[in-house]
Every structure is written in C-alpha cells, then in structure tokens.
C-alpha cells in the first residue's frame, strides 16, 4: 500500500484539504500505522510550535505624529491617485504627440496645396476664410504656425513680395503669409514644399481672440506642455508613494 505524502498529511493537520482529499486521508490513516505515526508526529510538531513561548518587547512602539499622516491634507489624495493619473497622463501625451505627428505628416503629403476640410470649416467668417487657408498652407510648409497672426502693418509691407521662392527662410515665409491671404488665387501649394530648412525664428505674437480657434498649433503645444508637467508631478508623487509604502518582496 502506498503511503500518504507528507504534504498531504501536513495540509490535513491544518484543515486545508478538500472534502474528498480529507476523506481519502482519513480512510488511509484508519488502516495504515506508518502514516498514522507520521501524522501524529507532524501534528505534535505543529502543537509544539503553537505553544512556543511568547516574548514581550522591552521597548514599546512609539508613533511619531509628525510623520506624514494619510488624513492630513490634499497630498494623500494626490498620492492615492498618482499612479493611475501618471499612466493616464502618459497615454494622453502619447496620443497628442501621435495625432500631431500624423497631422503634420498628412499636411506634408498635401503637396498640391489642398487645404484641409477642417481648416476651411473652422473659419468663422468669409472675411478671414482666405487668410486661414493661407495660414494653413504656410503651416504645412513648416513655417511657424502663428504666421497668420502678424499685425496688419507688416502685411502691407511684404505683400508685393509674395511670390513663391525656393530657399527663402521660414521666418521670411512667415511674414509673407498674411500678405498672401489677400491674393485671391495665390496657390497655397507654392509655399508648401519649398522651405527645406525651416528655422523657427519668428517670435510668437499675441494671438487675436478671433483667430485663436483657427490655429490649433499653440493650443496643442500648451495642452501638451501642461500634460507633461502634470505627468512629471504625478510621477514624482507616485515615486514618493512607492517609497512610503511597504516594499514588496517576492520570494
């Protein structure tokens, strides 16, 4: 007759067996002296351990109330949600970056100067329609996105020189952009592929309220920056939280 495994006997002592296993063990123990002896000795060891002396600490535990307490303010809530917040922020950053990348890519592929449907639709009035179209074209040509927001005084000065010229730097393109808006048939495509070395040199003017909606570049940048800052804060909080919480030891 095969004897019972020690692990089975040990689990039987602790009442950690399924009813079927338990019944099998009991049936076997009733007929096998060897296993019964082993069972009694293992149970004796268990009893001895249970009845080990209890030692009392000589030093009592002291709680320093100045230690950061979970109920002491806003920080705990931030810490509590910091990990999911950090993950969510990272997802949003990646998503925004991805959208921006593909939008830029799409614009770049519009080599014939087609203005995107959304850009035209977002135009608030007919008066600014063409201006928006042109600014989109310039944006597609790697010029600063705020090119359309150059004050009107500059537009007049540069209006005559609005001719597609290969090799002009992007700053110059940017200044030309508003002038181009007045030329009814100026092909937007002319601006698009001909700025091989874009350098962002034009300082960003303050956007006019009516034009802010049309130009989504700065808002994306702003949102992205804010999210990045939030992510950094959240990750820092998460690091603090993981340091404060007990470390996990996998054995």
């Amino acid at each position, binding site marked *: 007759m095969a004897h019972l495994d020690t692990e089975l006997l040990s689990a039987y002592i*602790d009442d*950690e067996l399924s009813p079927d296993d338990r019944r099998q063990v009991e049936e076997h123990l009733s007929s096998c002296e060897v296993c019964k002896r082993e069972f009694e000795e293992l149970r004796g060891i268990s009893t001895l351990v249970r009845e080990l002396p209890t030692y009392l600490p000589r030093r009592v*535990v002291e709680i320093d109330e100045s230690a950061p307490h979970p109920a002491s*303010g806003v920080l705990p809530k931030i810490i509590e949600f910091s990990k999911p917040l950090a993950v969510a922020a990272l997802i949003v950053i990646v998503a925004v970056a991805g959208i921006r990348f593909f939008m830029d890519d799409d614009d770049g592929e519009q080599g014939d100067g087609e203005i995107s449907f959304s850009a035209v639709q977002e135009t608030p009035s007919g008066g600014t329609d063409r201006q928006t179209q042109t600014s989109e074209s310039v944006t597609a040509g790697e010029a600063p996105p705020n090119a359309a927001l150059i004050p009107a005084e500059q537009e007049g000065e540069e209006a005559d020189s609005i001719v597609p010229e290969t090799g002009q730097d992007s700053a110059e393109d940017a200044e030309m952009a508003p002038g181009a808006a007045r030329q009814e048939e100026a092909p937007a495509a002319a601006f698009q592929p001909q700025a091989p070395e874009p350098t962002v040199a034009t300082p960003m003017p303050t956007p006019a309220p009516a034009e802010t909606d049309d130009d989504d570049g700065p808002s994306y940048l702003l949102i992205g920056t804010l999210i990045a800052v939030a992510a950094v804060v959240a990750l820092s909080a998460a690091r603090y939280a993981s340091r404060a919480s007990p470390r996990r030891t996998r*054995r």
Partner: protein
Amino acid sequence: MLWPIFPTPRVIRTRRRATAAKGESSHGPDVDEQQVDERLVARARQGDVAAFHDLVDRHQVAIFNVVLRTVNDPGTAEDVTQDTFMRAWRSLAQFRGGNVRGWLMRIAVNRAYDTLRTRKRRPSESLDALDYEPVTAWSSNVSASEDPHAFSARSELSDALESMLARLPDDQRTALLLVDLQGFSYDEAAGIMQVAPGTIKSRISRARSRLREEMRADTRRSELFNRFLRQDSESPA
C-alpha cells in the same frame, strides 16, 4: 493660501506598556476581532492617534514574536516592530481594507527580510541564549507547581524546538510561524509572504518534516518528544 498638506511639526510620543494578554490571539482572529481592527484603522485614518495606539497594542506582541524568530535578535526585532508600525501609520491611506492583522504582518515580514538581507548573516544563537526571558510560557497543561519534572521536560523540549526553528530556512520558518504560531490560513500566509498558497503548503510540510527528523536525530530530544506525544494523545482535544 497654503494648503495644510503637512502637519505642524509636533511630536507626541505616547508610551504604553505592552501587554501580552491584550488583544492577542495566537490562533487566528475571529470576525469580531477583525471588525475591531477595521474600526481602529478607520479612526486612525481620520488622524486618531489613540486608535492607532490601540492597534499597536493589539498586534505588536504577535509581530514582535514572528520577527524575533526571523531575525533572531531582540534589539533588531524591536527596531523592525517599531518600523513596521511607523510604515503602517504612514501608509494607512493605501490600505484597501480587509485583514488588518495580515497587512501589518506583511509589512513586518518584509521588513524582517530586508533586515536579514542587509545584515547578510543571521545570529546563530538560539533565543534561550539571548538573556531574553519569555514573560508568558507555553500554554501547556503542565504546571511547574503540580509536576516540576514534566514542566522541566516540556521547557527543555521547547528550547530544543527554538534551536531547531532557528536552523530552518527563512522561508520555511516564516511560513510555519505564520500558520502554527499565529494561526493564519494558507491563503492568508500566502498573501503575507506574497507567494502562492501551494508554496506555503509545501514550505510548511518541509519545515515540519525537517523538525521531526531533527527531533528524532537526538536521543534525548526523541525521548522528550515521545513523552510529549503520549501526553498530547491522552489530553482531551
């Protein structure tokens, strides 16, 4: 406006005597005990330091005894016990509810293992050689006044077991202490040691098997063990 993120630097040290009897249950907490723990945790989360001290009183002896037998040094065990409750205090917000005793024990076991890793070497002396007398002796039916010989034999067996426990692998000893000494189930012990319940089952089996073999390896110990088994089988369950 400054938000009250950090409390005013103020140290209140409440000294309380550790009492063995208070709230200590060596064979697993019942539902009422768990409810008491949960209420104390809820109050402590609101900033009630007295409630947290009650929690300390209820569990520090159990934690100290497991940690003591893990690190085998009373001073270190006291440090680990202190650190366990400080960490618990700081991480009350992250406690998701459930078994408070298991949560505290998990912090303690992790801290004890951290200490062992840092120290690299575990003291080899047994507890009886550490000049650290137990306040409460084993809860056997044997009384020193009624049967001094039986009491002496039982004490000797208990000391031998302490020495054998100290020689067990850390993981086996901790699993055995959690289940036998503290009365945790396999699932609870698995949660504390962060392993599968099957691993706990295996570690306990190996630990008991090894202790049994060591008990039989020495003639005197074997004789004492036989006497204990006879008494154990005769005593009412």
